[in-house]
């Protein structure tokens, strides 16, 4: 209902939080890496892309997929804009 919409901001719900927590948990579960290492990976990706791309505030997302035994790592990097070539 419209009234519900007025009462709540769209981001203010617990299912988004649940989803974000789950994807973090699954990265460490599937890769058997600790959350600290996952954070480090994200930081390194951030560092190396930062010189070419301005990265959005949402931050980099790591996701592991396990399709028929092959584990792949996909990263989602929100791009604000490309940095002009030096």
């Amino acid at each position, binding site marked *: 209902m419209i009234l519900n919409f007025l*009462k*709540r901001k*769209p981001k*203010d*719900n617990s299912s988004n939080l*649940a989803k974000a927590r*789950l994807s973090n948990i699954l990265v460490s579960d599937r890769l058997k890496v600790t959350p600290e290492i996952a954070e480090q990976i994200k930081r390194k990706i951030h560092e190396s892309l930062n010189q070419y791309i301005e990265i959005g505030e949402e931050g980099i997302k790591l996701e592991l*997929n396990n399709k028929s*035994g092959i584990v792949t790592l996909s990263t989602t990097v929100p791009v604000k804009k490309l940095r002009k070539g030096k």
Partner: protein
Amino acid sequence: MGRIITITSGKGGVGKTTATANIGAGLALMGKSVVLIDADIGLRNLDVVLGLENRIVFDIVDCVEGNCKLRSALIRDKRYEGLFLLPAAQTREKDAVTPEQMIQICTELKESFDYVLIDCPAGIEQGFKNALAGADAVLIVTTPEVSAVRDADRVIGLVESRGIEDVGLIINRVRPELIEQGDMLSVEDVCDILAIKLVGVIPNDDYIVISTNRGEPVVSIKESIAGQALGNITKRILGEEIPFLNLKVKPKGFFASLRELFSGK
């Protein structure tokens, strides 16, 4: 030749046993011959959910130890033509049966029944390994909660590493009103994360409590939405294309919403 389907979840209390009992009853209603195996040795419950607890004479451990023939341990459910239960032992431990013995039982049952459904215990230890030993297909039951989905993900990994390819997902205890207000993982969210084929969505339903109290499968209760969802799962297992139930919350109307707003809900 029958088909062996193991129902598992990793986490306990998400509805494996209820799903097993109802899918079994549903398949029997569709004219199939079905054996339900309770693989939860030491904590059996499938007999209770089916209301057959007073009819147990022999159990699965008696079969593997040669105290009885497999046939004589099967309990016939008189309400559902073609439905049988092979109960677990209550006073033994999981290692009373080995995976090899489980395969042997499955192979024997496969010859005379259309479906063998195995109710897997919670966890990923011996009981889980037994339940998966003979499986042709696996159904993973989960609920839209972080803990249950996490465990389901782990179990899917273990199942796939055994080379079982037919893995389906059942999402249980879905509450559309909570999803709509953004306070529950949606069916799409769970499917995105687990990335296996969806076989069923079961809404939260008080009829489940009532039918478990009575020991009667909920698939037989026409008014129950969970019963309908379980009936649909049965048909999908049989290869029918059945659309998923529409779980959209009906709009409440202006005055109801206004009332809610003022009551501060």
